[in-house]
């Protein structure tokens, strides 16, 4: 079943891009198409980051272990959309003026933090293959990939800092991200707390693989 479902999910992940392309082709992107493209690719980056981060909690809470087989794909789609987002910025906003771009990165907080989030995702995309997991070893690979937490926080902060006044959209992302991160803190803290008390650690907790 999953074998069939995966290509389907892959195509579904491309729908946001296809929609943009279709609208651009029909000149239906409104008065400021470049702004729409920038915002849309940015939104979808955050959405895919959150989906990626939701896989582990969902898998644990529902027992649907097969979900893990989609995590890399969603993560890579987050990278795909952030790459498009960055391309729109460097091409349609800065017109490949590297000097101006670097000045922006240094001077504008929201660009600095957004750019950081993007750069941190690059090693994750590169080392997303089975070969790299083998080369790095599972433990080290996992540690490296914890960078996604930093990236996701940077992405939400980037959004938060760029809006003029109305923070309700970045706030929605922040809440979902907060829940996903809180889950990890709880999973990490409960066995520790139990161990500190010297009491028996619930068997169910012990079975959680360390992430």
């Amino acid at each position, binding site marked *: 079943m999953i074998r069939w479902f995966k290509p389907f999910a892959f195509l579904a992940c491309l729908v946001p891009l296809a929609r943009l392309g279709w609208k651009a082709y029909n000149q239906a992107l*409104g008065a400021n198409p470049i702004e729409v493209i920038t915002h849309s690719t940015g939104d979808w980056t955050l959405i895919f980051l959150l989906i990626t981060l939701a896989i582990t909690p969902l898998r644990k809470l529902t027992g649907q272990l097969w979900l893990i087989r989609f995590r890399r794909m969603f993560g890579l789609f987050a990278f795909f959309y952030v790459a498009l987002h960055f391309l729109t910025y460097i091409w*349609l906003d800065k*017109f490949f003026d590297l000097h101006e771009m670097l000045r*922006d990165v240094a001077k504008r907080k929201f660009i600095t933090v957004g750019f950081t989030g993007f750069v941190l995702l690059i090693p994750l995309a590169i080392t997303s293959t089975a070969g790299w997991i083998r080369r790095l070893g599972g433990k080290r690979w996992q540690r490296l990939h914890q960078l996604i937490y930093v990236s996701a926080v940077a992405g939400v902060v980037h959004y938060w800092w760029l809006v003029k*006044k109305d923070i309700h959209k970045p706030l929605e992302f922040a809440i979902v991200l907060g829940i996903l991160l809180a889950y990890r803190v709880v999973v990490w803290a409960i066995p520790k707390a139990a161990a500190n008390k010297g009491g028996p650690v619930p068997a169910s907790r012990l079975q959680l693989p360390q992430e």
Partner: protein
Amino acid sequence: MLIKKSNDIPSSEITPKSLYVNRRKFLAGAAMAGGAALMGKRVNDLLLPTTVQADAKIDGIQKSPLSTTEKVTPYKDVTNYNNYYEFSTDKYEPAGLAKNLKTRPWKVKIDGLVSKKQELDVDTIIKMATPEERIYRHRCVEGWSIVVPWVGFSLSELIKRAEPLGKAKFVEFTTIYDPGQMPGQRSNILNWPYIEGLRLDEAMHPLALLCFGMYGEPLPNQDGAPLRIVLPWKYGFKSAKAIVRIRFTDSQPINTWNKAAPDEYGFYSNVNPNVDHPRWSQAKERRLGEFFKRPTLMFNGYDQVASLYSGMDLKKNF
């Protein structure tokens, strides 16, 4: 300033909206008529318009030497991409949400330090002076710009008639507060009602426009109907929309955006490529409809206002 002669097609010669809307109605009517004919109804009833077009042309519009010859932004962009937080923070939404705003009857209160305190009907104000078409560049603080053929006359025409007292140094503009009609006002994203202000000498500058139309027609609701100001050398948010009160004061008004974020939006808010917004650069702008960004000009290219600010530190008075 070099006053260039307009060689563009005046927007009044472009197919007026009422005509093309009527064309669409005709087509829709024709389609319906086809169906109706099948049902045996009289075709004529369907083809006759049932309402008088509210957005008729404004008569007697004079051209103005203050107009730019730059390419006018398409009507559909200027009417579908609006920063109008009274309706929504989404620029694409005011077009729909403002549709039913009641703009008649509409009173404008003129008070404060003037000898003629009064409440005027907007239609009385509109008839005070000859309507002019002023094609102005309009630069938003967010970094995009448009060129709009506004219709109105110099704000000074109204101010002169109000006879401000010697003590009056500032003018304050208040936008209507009506959460029932303006859904954005139901949340306190900004401190309602929207307040804007000018120094009296800025308000008296011939470029400062009291505006009630654009593209040869009355203002659409999402663009500030029935009465707004247009200050082309300042960032767009200074140009208050749907004005219900004009008050003359001796102290500097606190404008809404300044109150919301004093370090980001000042009282003057003159377009200035050398003074960045704390979070983004103001050196360039995207003219809607253009692929490449263009450099932003000092005072948005309206150098004739420079003398209003001579001796002032424009970095401090941003």
